């Protein structure tokens, strides 16, 4: 399929519109990130460059104090990679659904796929073990939607940073909008266990640097899910 035809594709449009439900929360986060970049002293030009190219909110926020403090480049890059380690895990999931694409195309698409994209994707395509027709176009639609909302709001935050009242706690709007998607994924016992284990681990490991508590929480949830699957197998065999 030619890229030109994408905007008219049914799956592409579906992917974009599913994602736009998160528009308000995503925009609140983008705005806050834009303001944070300028207020860290990065300057308008570099803030815009960062928003357009780095395109990973949590890694951006984590590198700001390091950039401002004049940390060596490799330290900044290494810490961003640690903050982004969850994407390495996510990419193994994307491989199932995008593995059939030509390499260049799947890498470009992969670069554009943020956290929210995989979560919404999993919601729309519950059978996660196999590739189905239309999945890549659905993912591309979601990617374009998130990119657009995020960049517009982030650039607005950069350009209007002195006008946005951070004391209102706008960032919490992003948190509240994620609650809905988290609840919507709690559709079986395994998901509940994963969520509870992850929440407890994230709080307990909060003191770790570089948001590594998120990685610890993912590892704990995946381990719990492995153990549960094994226990279910054993129970089935003995029944």
């Amino acid at each position, binding site marked *: 399929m030619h890229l030109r035809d994408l905007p008219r594709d049914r799956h592409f449009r579906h992917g974009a519109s599913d994602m736009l439900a998160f528009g*308000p929360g995503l925009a609140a986060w983008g705005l806050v990130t834009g303001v944070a970049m300028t207020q860290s002293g*990065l300057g308008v030009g*570099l803030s815009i460059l*960062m928003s357009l*190219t*780095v395109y*990973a909110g*949590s*890694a*951006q926020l984590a*590198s700001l104090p390091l*950039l401002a403090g004049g940390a060596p*480049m490799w330290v*900044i890059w290494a810490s*961003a990679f640690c903050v*982004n380690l*969850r*994407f*390495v895990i*996510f*990419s*193994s*999931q*994307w*491989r199932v659904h995008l593995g059939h694409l030509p*390499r260049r195309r*799947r*890498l470009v698409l*992969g*670069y554009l796929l943020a956290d929210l994209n995989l*979560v919404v994707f999993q919601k729309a395509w519950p059978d996660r*073990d196999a590739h189905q027709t239309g999945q890549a176009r659905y993912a591309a639609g979601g990617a374009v939607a998130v990119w657009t909302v995020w960049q517009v709001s982030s650039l607005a935050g950069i350009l209007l940073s002195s006008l946005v009242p951070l004391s209102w706690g706008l960032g*919490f709007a992003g948190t*509240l909008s*994620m*609650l*809905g998607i*988290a*609840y*919507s*994924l*709690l559709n079986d016992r*395994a*998901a509940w266990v*994963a*969520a509870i284990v*992850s*929440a407890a681990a*994230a709080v307990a490991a*909060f003191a770790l640097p570089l948001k590594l*508590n*998120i990685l610890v*929480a*993912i590892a704990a*949830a*995946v381990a719990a*899910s*492995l153990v549960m*699957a*094994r226990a279910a197998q054993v129970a089935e065999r003995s029944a």
Partner: protein
Amino acid sequence: MTLADGLLPAWAHGAITILGLAAVTALSRGFFLWSKRDLRLPDALQRALQVAPLAAIVAVLAPEIFMTHGALIGTWRDARLPAALAATAFYAWRPGVLGPLLAGLAVYMPLHVGLGW
């Protein structure tokens, strides 16, 4: 890099750092998409990894809702708990994204901006 400190103007140093960060994004998001061979993790692990996105979201949300300054919230005068409760109640009534968000903000804004909770 310390070597570059004296050699590059500050903006160029910043720009190189930022482009490096962009490469880090591409590397991490494309990690398992690089290989030309079809990579398959063991089935059990692949299936267990399916909870990773939910776990990541919950891991971001839980501290944002339950913690303040690195410790669990010790007071009920924090606007986030009632706001999260309101959003949860709304979700139980009508699942969705925008409804719970607005319900939560309707509780959060007066308490946070008005009362300073």
